[in-house]
């Protein structure tokens, strides 16, 4: 084992040249360096790989929907007729359905989630807040498809028999009194409709919004509360005046993240929205979101056909919508979660 210095490669720069080189030491040093280099770069490889996956996402979906993109151009997102038999593909009903259900879900979920976050982080004593917080978060552990099954068995009949008829009579009374029906609550009630889908979406995004709002409230410095309390404010007043105001950016971020989740939710919506390819004319109308379109119609034609490519283009539209929403939300939440911890090294 007589390996000369030349065989071990060039001297590392930090080895003093005057010292007679110990061959074993040299090999050892190089080995360490090479392994360090390899390790560092393999972690880099996987980190960049994540960016690559996201990039491939867009590329692959564009490649898969080349034909309808070239054929329909902007008419795809602007056209309101979806008629595969006539090769007319306008995705507006689904974009509309997605926006409508998500917006409605936010209307229901935001006040509830903020109430939960405020109660758990500001008003409740700790021994009550902690277990309640766990239980609320359990809602996030229920799979989407189970929500759908529950929606079919419990929520749909409940909405049809208990919630919707009074709303319809409001509509009837309005059309009787002021001769102007409220179009939101028009039409016959069958339970599987845009309204029910929105309610189920609201339930599903409550844990997201309340958990991140809680983080935002937790990030408010204690001095902020104490200042208000020391001036004689009640805990609600301290929350309203000094805490909510301080945390509003994070709360907006939480709401947008909830929106992002609602927009992409598939199974529960597919099972409750009623699945119709036209724009619903009231809350009791049947509709379709982009996600439910994919789940419902993907197998209606052979892979590679124009129909399936059009559905892939709809998925591309959905991806772009959620990317925009999530980038916006993360930019708002980022500073809050990230800013606190300093660099490790």
């Amino acid at each position, binding site marked *: 084992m007589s390996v000369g210095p030349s065989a071990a490669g060039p001297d590392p720069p930090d080895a003093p040249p005057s010292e007679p080189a110990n061959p074993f030491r040299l090999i050892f040093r190089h080995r360490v360096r090479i392994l360090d280099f390899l390790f560092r770069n393999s972690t880099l490889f*996987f980190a960049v790989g994540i960016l690559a996956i996201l990039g491939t996402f867009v590329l692959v979906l564009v490649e898969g929907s080349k034909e309808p993109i070239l054929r329909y151009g902007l008419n795809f997102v602007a056209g309101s007729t979806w008629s595969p038999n006539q090769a007319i593909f306008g995705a507006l009903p689904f974009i509309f359905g997605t926006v409508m259900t998500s917006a409605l879900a936010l209307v229901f979920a935001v006040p509830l989630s903020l109430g939960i976050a405020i109660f758990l982080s500001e008003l409740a004593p700790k021994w009550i807040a902690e277990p309640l917080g766990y239980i609320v978060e359990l809602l996030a552990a229920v799979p989407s498809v189970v929500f759908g099954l529950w929606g079919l068995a419990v929520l749909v009949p409940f909405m049809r028999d208990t919630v919707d008829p009074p709303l319809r009579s409001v509509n009837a009374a309005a059309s009787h009194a002021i001769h102007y029906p409220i179009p939101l609550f028009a039409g016959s009630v069958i339970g599987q409709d845009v309204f029910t889908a929105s309610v189920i979406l609201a339930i599903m995004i409550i844990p997201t919004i309340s958990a991140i709002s809680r983080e935002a409230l937790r990030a408010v410095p204690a001095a902020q509360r104490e200042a208000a309390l020391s001036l004689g404010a009640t805990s609600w007043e301290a929350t309203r005046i000094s805490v909510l105001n301080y945390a509003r950016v994070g709360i907006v971020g939480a709401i947008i993240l909830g929106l992002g989740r609602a927009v992409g939710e598939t199974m529960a919506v597919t099972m409750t929205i009623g699945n119709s390819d036209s724009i619903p004319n009231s809350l009791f109308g049947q509709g379709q979101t982009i996600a439910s379109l994919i789940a419902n119609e993907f197998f209606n034609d052979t892979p590679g056909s124009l129909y399936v490519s059009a559905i892939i283009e709809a998925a591309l539209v959905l991806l772009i919508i959620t990317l925009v929403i999530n980038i916006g939300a993360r930019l708002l939440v980022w500073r809050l979660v990230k800013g606190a911890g300093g660099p490790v090294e």
Partner: protein
Amino acid sequence: MRFDRNARRRWMNWIMSALALLCVVVALVPLGSIIYTAVTFGGHVLSFSFLTSGYPLACSPTPSQPTCPVGGIGPAIEGTGVLLALSSLFSVPPGILAGVYLSEFGRGRLGRSVSFFTDVMTGSPSIVVGIFVYTLFFLFFGPRGVFSALSGAVALAILMIPIVTRTTEEALRLVPNSVREAAYALGIPRYRAVLHVVLSAARGAILTGVVLAVMRAGGEAAPLLLTALGNPFGFQGLTQPSASLPPIIFNFGTSAYSNQVAVAWGAALVLIIIMLCISLTVRFALRSKLS
């Protein structure tokens, strides 16, 4: 006058606290209802043989045969097990290594943007991930290669990677710098310090992240409907379609036959029990870790 105003403020405080508590209660009603319904509709089919026997055939009760055989979800359990093992294999090692980069090496612009887009990726809809993997496999392997256990596992892995990466990053950031310095002071090379010292100091939190990722993947039905598809015989090889639990709940839950709907509820109950147990375990493990 002054007394009145203060009394009003105290009332306001009380009312707002009560309203906030009401929000919590309202949010818990669906959770309670879901668990209650799953137990009433699915509890009676649950047994050991339910977990192992094959799917029920479509069957409606007739005078000559008043009850239909319920069958079970054996194939789905088998398929889900294989799919989750495969997707963990595809996602955990890369995810952890990427997390190591973000925490230990990636201090610059690149690290920050990877970290940011990993978060963004967590929000991409699972159905879009499904359609992405479908299209990818279609482009590379043609229509015959699309529906397979492999494509299902890849789809689930894509959903898991961002979760594993970000929790690893967060976990490693919590390891005090003195631990790294102590390792370097012993002359340990950097890669060994990270692999043996830093990673093992954070292994509990990383494991939590992996469990959370498996949990997310285990509940997903949408991407599997487009990739692994389903298979009444469970798992039959990487290139064959594979059964799994969540899609079965969708397929049987929307069926017109009451025995299949009962199986959907049984499967839902199994899934809920697994998810809630994991979720609670992770919570308490994490809490004892932090305190």
